[in-house]
Structures are given as C-alpha cells and as structure tokens.
C-alpha cells in the first residue's frame, strides 16, 4: 500500500508552533509512506489539487492529512480523495491544530508530537478498509406536532409541495395562541382575520390529515423511516356524523363549572363545548370532569339536542400509527404564572405582586382576550372583577423574564412589542384612559418595530417609566403599583384600575416529556435545542426532526412562520430523492460470536439494537443474537465497547485499526 502524507500549515495556525517541513520530511521515512509534503493551505483549491496530482503521480492508495480537526475539513479531503479515485474512508486526519499547535507553546516538543500523531494515522490508514455509503428508503410524509401558526405554516408548505402531512394538535382546535390574539404588531391587523383562512385551508387540504385532540405517544425509527403512534383522545362526539350545529353546546345545563382556557379563564364554558366560534374542526368536545352524565349517569340533554345521534358517551381513546419520513416539532409555548409555584418547581412566583390573587392583575394573553372583538367583553376594555371600564392601566414588562431569582434568565423577546400594542389599543378604546408601561429596556428590533413603539409614546401618549415594579397591592378597589423611575431617580406610585403583566414565555410543562418521546435534546428550561445556533437553526440534533416556532425559544409570529417554512423546506429537501445516503460508520454484529446477552441493547442511546432469531435447518430457533439496524445506528461505538464477547465491530474503527494506532505511539 502506498500512502501519501500531506501536512497543512493552516496559514500560521499550525506552523507557528509546529515545524511543518520537518514533519513532512520525517514522515516520508515511515514505512509505507510513498510521498510526503507540506503546504500553506491544504484545504484551498491548489492544496486539493496538490493531493490529486500526488495520487496520480505516485499511484497512492491511501492518504493522511495533518491539518485542523476532522470536524472542520474531513469532508473536504474525502471529496478530494474521491476525485482522485481513492475510497473516501481511506483518508485519515491527524489533528495538528486543535490537538497540537493551539495547545502547545514549545516548537520542538510540538513538532515531535505532530510527527507522532501523523505516525498513528499512517498505521491506522494501512488497515482501513474501503467502505461505501448505506442507502435507506424514505417515506415521503411529514408528521407536524402542534397546530399553532408554526405548525399550520409548516403543514401547508409541505402539503403544497406535494407531500402528505399528518398534523397532530392536542387541543380540540388548531390555531394555537395566535387565534387568541386581538390585533397584531406592528400593523394592527386582526389576528383571527389573517389566521382563520389558513386554518380552513389546513382542514380542506387533500394532502393534510388533521388529528385534533390528539397527542403523540411514541416515535420510533430513524430519518426517512419514523413510525409515530398517536393517541386520539375521546371527544365523545362522532366526528364523522357531527355537523357542528352547536345545538348540544347551547342545551348543556352546565353553565358555570369550567373556565374556558381559550378565554384564559375570563369566561365559563359548558361541559360540551367548541373552544371558539372559528374553531377548526368545528366539532365539540365533552369534558368528562364536569359533565353530569359522567358524574351520575343522568342528564343526556346533549343527546336529546343532537338530531344526528353524534353524541357517543362510550367513545374511547384510540391509537393510530403513522409512517413518516420527517418530523416537524412546533409545540409552542405557554405563559409563566406569577402564582405560588409547587415545591420543587424550577420557577418562583411573585408574592410581591400577590401571587395572582388580585382579579384585575392579569397577564398579556388575558388582556388579548379582553381587547379582542370575539372575547368575553366583545372587545370593550373592562375589569374582570367588576366589569367597569378601567381608566388607568399599568403594564409591567419582564415579569418572570430576565429575573434569575424567579428562575428565568432569558428575555422573552415579544413582550416589549405586545405591551406597546396593548397600551396603544387601550388608548384607542378608552380615550380618557392613562396607560403606564414599566420597562427595563425596550427591545424593538424588527422591521417597523421601533417605529411602532415610538408611535405608542409619541402619538398615543403611553407613559413609559424605566424601572421594575417592587410591589402591587389592593387598596379601596385600586391597585397600588410601587415603582421607581430610574431615569429621573424618583419613586413612582400609581393607583391603577388594572395591571397587565407581560409574563415570560416558557415551554409547556410536558415539553421534556415530548422531547424524550421524539428523541431530541432540550435546554434547562425545556426549550428544544437546535443543531447549530447559527447555521442549523431549524434542525434538531436528531436527523430528520426539525423545529419551528416558540418550542425552540421565544419567538413572534413572523419569526415562527419563517422558521416553519424553513423546517418545511428541510423536509422537502429530504424527500427530493427516493433514498437517503448514510455514512457507513455503523456497528455490525458477528452472529457466530454473539452470546445473546443484549447488554448492547441496554446501552444503545438510539434504540438501534434488535433481536434476531437464528434458526436451524428445520426452521427451529436455537439462538437469539443482537442485530444492529444500519439505518438507526449513529456509529457512537458504545455497543462495541460494552460487548463482552467482542463480537461487535464499528466499521472504520475496528479493533485492529485502533490497536495499530495505539501501538504506533
């Protein structure tokens, strides 16, 4: 075997502490090395040409490159090898930058170490075997989890590109938080007016299968070949028969037992309900926890009201399985609550703001409902406690956000904008009203955002006060808000009629649970991690699983939509060919040696190990052995290290190769 060694200076990054010409000279003497050379930038076009020419002239069979980390340029040099007619897995990288020049100062010893690193790579490459990429088939269907604006956008984009979509939403209707909003910044267009056409489009799209009131139970498989199990919760309404006439809803005798979560607790809903008039699908749900029938077997008013016999008290949850090639997670957010938190919670409530015991101290989403034409007050600004029109509203930003003492260090990003919008809406609706906003910094980065905030201040005369509020308490029907204007350096106490808290955006309680089912990592708050913060913002670290919207970090509507379209296009790219190529660095079991202990199965983080029966000539099973699914295996090597009988080998990193590397040292 003829080996070529190519030593890169990396500008001065390597050559500053490693004598590269000497490394090249010394390495030429290693047995098996036919040719050795150093060059200033091996990754550049002339550098790659140098490799190709050397392969041709010296008839090289394998190459070793002494350069930066393989994370950086392994792919580059493998491509160069392929262009020169060498199998890409007969290329080894000796990391002379991160592992050597960057971490040492003494030129002599660094040069010695560099020579040793190259020698090890040479010994390994001598034993490397040519490998070829693995092909796996692709199921051209996408599972979208979450039916808010991000999930809706992603589903429509994928479906319009001609692929099937399964859209799963845990609530009875799609629409998410956007359907609750009144008007949207910075244009003040009606949220529902722009959202509902998309919701209807989803419902009518021939390529979208919409599963509302459903949750993902489990996802198995791997990129291109996921198998999702979905629980369709019992609505107790036969969806195929129901016409959405709403007779059952209006006849239900339960009037004041359950709060509407769509109205953020500001209104009641019956036991059988449609969350809001524009709901998609327009089919009610029966809430077992308050329905009289489930309590004592009586009532049945809804049954009498329904002329299509769509009420089905005996309906049970059903499970369904969907084969999909990609998953888009778009599960959104919820609002942090200032209420007293349970023991062991990672958040703390705001006792100084009364833990939510004051009825007219509400959060941003509640104000959206009050300001919404479809809301409980038909868009008139009224206090929840007594229905009176508030004349003085205090808006407080950064409630929970940027408050490490309460458990949240990050900025929720959207609150500056929606607070400006809400203060503006209040000033538009209550002409003699006064609006105060307590803020720490105004973060209005975005197209027309800063202009929007200035408009609230300059045209709508919203009073902005820089400072955090220390305390809120009730006195004679007013809410005393104790603050300080830190710019003037004066205390500011306001007797407000109503207080609106811009509470932090946090992940749903079950976000970590879903992440574990899907197999994606999440941060300490429960936001799902992207694969790279700059260059792979919509990919999760699991191949084939993409992220959209606020499940990843606080985001506003335009960002969520952009992210959803990006995630959709990633899925569509995946579907552009009929099979996927995967790196051949996977583990393989020697079935003769395998003792069937299945320790490998316990340690595999990807669930790639399966059980295979070995049968004799008569078809009788006489042995069970481990089998590694080539599509799922990520080549981490954990099974190889665990295997007691040494019967698992990782391609490209087998024992012979690794031992030769060590022995060379």
């Amino acid at each position: 075997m003829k080996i070529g060694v190519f030593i890169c200076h990396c500008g001065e990054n390597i050559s500053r502490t490693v004598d590269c010409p000497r490394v090249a000279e010394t390495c030429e003497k290693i047995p098996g090395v036919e040719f050795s050379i150093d060059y200033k930038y091996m990754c550049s076009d002339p550098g790659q040409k140098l490799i190709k020419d050397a392969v041709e002239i010296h008839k090289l069979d394998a190459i070793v490159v002494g350069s930066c980390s393989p994370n950086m340029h392994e792919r580059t040099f493998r491509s160069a090898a392929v262009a020169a007619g060498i199998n890409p897995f007969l290329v080894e990288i000796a990391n002379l930058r991160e592992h050597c020049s960057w971490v040492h100062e003494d030129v002599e010893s660094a040069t010695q170490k560099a020579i040793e690193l190259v020698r090890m790579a040479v010994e390994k490459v001598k034993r490397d075997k040519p490998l070829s990429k693995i092909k796996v088939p692709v199921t051209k269907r996408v599972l979208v989890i979450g039916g808010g604006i991000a999930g809706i956008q992603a589903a429509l984009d994928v479906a319009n590109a001609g692929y099937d979509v399964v859209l799963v939403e845990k609530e009875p209707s799609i629409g998410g938080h956007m359907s609750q909003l009144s008007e949207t910044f910075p244009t003040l267009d009606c949220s529902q007016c722009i959202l509902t056409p998309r919701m209807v489009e989803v419902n009518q799209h021939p390529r979208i299968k919409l599963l509302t009131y459903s949750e993902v139970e489990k996802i198995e498989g791997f990129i291109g070949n996921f198998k999702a199990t979905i629980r369709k919760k019992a609505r107790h309404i036969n969806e195929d028969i129901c016409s959405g006439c709403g007779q059952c809803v209006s006849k239900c005798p339960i009037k004041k037992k359950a709060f509407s979560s769509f109205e953020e607790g500001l209104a009641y809903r019956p036991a059988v309900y449609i969350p809001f008039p524009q709901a998609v699908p327009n089919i009610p749900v029966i809430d077992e926890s308050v329905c009289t029938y489930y309590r004592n077997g009586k009532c049945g008013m809804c049954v009498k009201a329904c002329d299509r016999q769509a009420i089905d008290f005996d309906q049970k949850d059903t499970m369904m399985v969907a084969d999909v090639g990609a998953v888009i997670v778009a599960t959104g957010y919820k609002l942090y609550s200032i209420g007293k938190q349970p023991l062991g919670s990672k958040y703390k409530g705001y006792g100084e703001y009364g833990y939510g015991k004051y009825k007219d101290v509400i959060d941003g989403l509640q104000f959206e409902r009050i300001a919404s034409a479809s809301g409980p007050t038909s868009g008139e600004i009224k206090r929840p406690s007594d229905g009176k029109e508030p004349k003085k509203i205090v808006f407080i930003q950064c409630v929970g956000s940027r408050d490490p003492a309460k458990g949240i260090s990050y900025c929720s990003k959207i609150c500056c904008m929606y607070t400006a919008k809400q203060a503006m809406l209040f000033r538009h609706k209550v002409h003699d009203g006064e609006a105060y906003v307590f803020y720490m910094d105004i973060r209005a980065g975005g197209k027309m955002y800063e202009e929007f905030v200035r408009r609230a201040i300059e045209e709508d005369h919203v009073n902005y006060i820089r400072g955090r509020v220390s305390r809120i308490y009730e006195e004679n029907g007013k809410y005393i808000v104790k603050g300080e204007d830190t710019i003037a350096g004066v205390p500011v106490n306001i007797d407000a009629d109503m207080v609106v808290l811009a509470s932090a955006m946090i992940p749903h309680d079950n976000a970590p649970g879903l992440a574990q089912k899907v197999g994606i990592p999440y941060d300490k708050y429960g936001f799902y991690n992207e694969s790279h913060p700059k260059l792979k913002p919509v990919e999760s670290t699991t191949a084939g699983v993409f992220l959209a919207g606020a499940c990843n970090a606080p985001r506003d509507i335009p960002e969520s939509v952009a992210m959803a379209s990006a995630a959709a296009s990633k899925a569509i790219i995946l579907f552009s060919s009929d099979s996927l190529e995967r790196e051949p660095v996977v583990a393989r079991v020697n079935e003769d040696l395998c003792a069937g202990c299945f320790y490998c199965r316990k340690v595999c983080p990807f669930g790639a190990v399966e059980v295979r029966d070995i049968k004799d000539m008569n078809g009788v099973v006489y042995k069970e052995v481990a089998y590694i699914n080539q599509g799922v295996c990520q080549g981490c090597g954990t099974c190889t290290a665990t295997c007691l009988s040494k019967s698992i080998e990782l391609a490209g990193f087998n024992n012979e190769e690794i031992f030769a590397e060590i022995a060379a040292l």
Partner: protein
Amino acid sequence: MADAGLTYGYFPGCSQKGSAREYEMSLLKVAGKLGIDLKEIDDWSCCGATSAHATNHRLANALAMRNMLLAEQQGLETLVAPCAACFNRLITTKAECRNHPESKKDVEELLSASVSNTTSILNVIDLFDKASNGLIGSGRVRDMKGLKAACYYGCLLVRPPELIDTDDSEQPDSMERIVKATGADVVEWNYRTECCGAAHSISRRDIVVDLSKRIIDDALMHGANVIIVACPMCHTNLDMRQRVMRRMYPSHKEIPVLYLTELIGLSLGFTESELGIDLHYIRFNMPNEIMNQTAQA
C-alpha cells in the same frame, strides 16, 4: 395541661431586660405553661444589633458569634431568640461563617476560640408554629374570639428568605396560624411585611412615625382591633410612637399592639398584668365576648 417537655437555650437580647420587659415576662409565662424549658445563656452579651452590622461587620460577626459560642459551650443545641433583630443577626452571622471560611476564621481569632457553628436558632414564630405543634389549642382556656388581629411580621422574621425557614417571605401565614389557634380572627391587610423604620426610632423619629403610622392606618382600614408583633423594635415603634402620632395627627385612631406571646398568654388564662400588657402605652381592652367567658369560668 399539655407538656411539650422541650428544653431550649434562651437568648433574651437587651430589650427583653428593659423596654421590652413584658415580652420576656409573657414569653416565660407561656413557655412555662406549655412545658417548654428556656435556659438563659449564662453571661450572654448584646448581638451587636443594627449599630454593629451597619458600621462594622467584623464586630457584628464577633458579637453575635460570642453568644452562639457560649450556647455551644453550655451544651445548648438550639437557641430561642425572641427579638427579631437578634434572631436575624445570629442567623446572618451563622450563614456568613458557614459560607465564607475566611469570616469564620476571623471570628474565631477575635473570640480566641474555635466555633463549630452548629447552633440552631429559632424565633418566636418557629417556637410556637413548629416546635410546639398544637399545644396552644389544647391548653387554651379562653377563646380570643372578638379580636380581629393584624399580624405584623415586619422585616426580620421573614427576610432574607434564603436563611429563614419561613413559609413565604412575601405572603407569610405562620403567625396567622398561631393567632387563629388562640381563637382570634385575623384580618387580611397589606402592610404585614413593610418596615416600621426599625433602628431609626431615636435618630430619625420622623421617618419611624411616618412609616409606623402607615402600618397602623392600613391595619385599621382593614378592620383590625389589635396588631400582633413578635419584635421589641416593632413594638416600640408601633406602640410607643402612637403618642407622637396622636400629637401630630389629631384624627389619629389608636390601636393596641400586643406581643404574640401576650396573646397566647391571654388564651392560656394569664391575666393582663401577669403578661405585662399594662406596661403598653396604648391600653388594651379585652373585647366583651372574652370578658364574659372569663366571668363564666
């Protein structure tokens, strides 16, 4: 009679021997009746109070630690410090010496002794809320019904939250639980944990009168007919300073201020003079309902 059979070290603090004499009287009476043995630390000294920590933190640490050291030497594992300020000084010094070895070393040098720093410190609320669970109810001979108590925690019984085993530093409930056990009603009000001006009592009387007046007015506005405190400083500012309030604000409405231990003492059947209630500036008149009960008994 209920008997807790508990023995604790007792750190009175200077006020208990002077301006808050009735606090000590009532505490010892009540503890005695409930079977809680309070052993006064022999030769205890001042904890340093506000003046030490406000001007000299090494002095403050050493003065506070001297008493915990005496407790250690006298075999007292747990100390009851009825004065909220003393209590706070002790727990603060203890925490600083636990978290910062250099502070502990400094204190040990100043005291010329090594300190194990393991003494537990209880305030009066801890003592009656946790240590003697349910005892007040079982020993109760008078139902204090008719009293509408505004429980005033002030600052140093609830802060800092990381050092105090309180249910909640913003919306506490522990004093209310004890007060309800005497049969009294509690009112909801807003100034439970607002500061009375504390150690500015003499040097900036104007501030203390303003702050204390706000507290008193809020209690009255929410229907209280008595304020309950567990701190000599709070008591001085809320009780004695009402004389100044009366002069400055002719419309000032008076409200009696009782120590928590005095209220418990009343419910356990002690007389007002046994508990030192007659030493207050604002006279406390027992509501008729309670008086009638006594007559029947």
